[in-house]
């Protein structure tokens, strides 16, 4: 562990910590950080799990780490091609243990907006849209998301549009980890370099913080794994994550 824990490393590492032994874990499009988290979990943790992804890969052996999280290299030397229809069906029939889904806005019930900022019919910003969320979030056993910015713009009291409901099991930002408790997002831990008060001030919804503590620092295995995935720091620079 270096002198400080970067927001980039904080997000990737804490997403990786949602991965559990023997489970099926999925990462999708527009999801570079979850992709790195899944690959980190394969390298850092001493247990087996199945990593499937939107490129059709099943426990692939990619020859490089791609910029695009849907890059076909993520199916390189896969043992099977598990294409889009297949992994969506796996999810809707209740067999997707953990999936990572993108979000622009998140509310206190763990619902997401990926559709529009402002009115859907006359949007200020047209966002990417429904994607996996509306179907996967309510049907995956656990769905997690992340934001590279922790602010009242991203963690909101009220979504501009409810693209997906069903309740996130986890949310990771540069400074905090939320989990689901009583069908709401509750704080699990916060970045050791910020305070609980700062997390509250920068979050648009109220949350329960019972039992929350500073997040345990990354282990040497986690640090080594991320360094091996991003040896030049290019992913970290591209992600432009800021703690403050």
């Amino acid at each position: 562990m270096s002198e400080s824990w970067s927001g980039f490393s904080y997000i990737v590492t804490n997403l990786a910590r949602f991965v559990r032994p023997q489970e099926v874990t999925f990462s999708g499009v527009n999801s570079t950080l979850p992709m790195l988290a899944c690959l980190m979990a394969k390298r850092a943790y001493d247990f087996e799990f199945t990593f499937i992804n939107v490129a059709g890969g099943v426990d692939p052996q990619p020859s490089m780490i791609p910029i695009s999280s849907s890059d076909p290299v993520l199916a390189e030397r896969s043992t099977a091609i598990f294409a889009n229809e297949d992994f969506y069906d796996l999810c809707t029939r209740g067999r997707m243990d953990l999936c990572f889904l993108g979000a622009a806005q998140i509310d206190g019930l763990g619902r997401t907006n990926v559709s529009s900022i402002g009115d859907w019919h006359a949007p200020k910003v047209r966002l990417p849209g429904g994607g996996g969320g509306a179907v996967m979030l309510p049907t995956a056993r656990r769905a997690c998301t992340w934001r590279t910015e922790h602010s009242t713009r991203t963690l909101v009291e009220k979504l501009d549009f409810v693209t997906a409901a069903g309740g996130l099991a986890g949310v990771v930002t540069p400074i905090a980890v939320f989990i689901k408790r009583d069908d709401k997002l509750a704080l699990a831990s916060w970045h050791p370099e910020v305070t609980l008060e700062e997390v509250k001030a920068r979050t648009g919804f109220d949350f329960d913080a019972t039992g929350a503590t500073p997040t345990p620092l990354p282990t040497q295995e986690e640090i080594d794994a991320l360094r091996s995935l991003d040896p030049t720091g290019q992913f970290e620079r591209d992600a432009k994550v800021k703690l403050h």
Partner: protein
Amino acid sequence: MSTTTSKKQLSISDLAALVPDGASLALGGSFLHRGPFALVRELIRQGRKDLEIIKQSPGYDIDLLCRAGAVRRTRAGIVAMEGNFGLAPWYRKAVEQQQIELEEHACATLTAGLRASAFGVPFQPVGGVHGSALVELNGWKALDDPYGQGEPTYVIPAIKPDFAVLHVNEVSPDGDVRVYGTSHWDRIMTRAADKVIVVAERVASEESFRTQPELTLVPHFMTTAYAIVPGGAWPGSCWPEYEVDYPAVTAYLEDAPGVLDAHLDAAPEARETEAAHV
């Protein structure tokens, strides 16, 4: 079967000419990966208008078509350039300025609509969706389980594109289709659409298909016509042939006069035609 062969192989411009103004097209691939981009560009060169674009995860293709003013409506799950390129700027502008109509889906609801067509039924149940504002937006209906076992389930109306348009690795002389790596949603698109048209990296022998028929994604009798354009998924990837051309995507995204034309002229199918004319 040799007689059918020559009938099905067309130039990329003749292939594009099969698509009339106002047609609905399901485009294969996902984001920057194995999309039928040569065909999309050729539609723009030919000035096609009022197209309906159907794709779970369009990006470069829908952006280019919006930039050229060729789109009337899109039915999509998630739209982005992806990689580090973020949103699709000309698509975004077209929606924000209400120049095109958007039917926003979850990827799986679009797939459900395609499944309904592929299965020959008017609607297809889909898991999830509960609590999403997409339901009201699209007027999706929930049906009770007539057998009293399950929860009310949303059903999606059939989506039947006029054409499924794929970019693939290999085609047989007679139109059998093979792809390597993920097939994305290409398979269900070919089963849902009225016609299937294909751009391939190359022709592979009928014999090679007969040796491993398990690898064929689309049998020849479903393929209306195809063109051969090596590199045709540029500036995207076509596994395992080539990776994304990131500098070309960056150049495309520049908002300046002449950029669109320069981009179209730099495409493999344009350079090939030019070379043929020399």
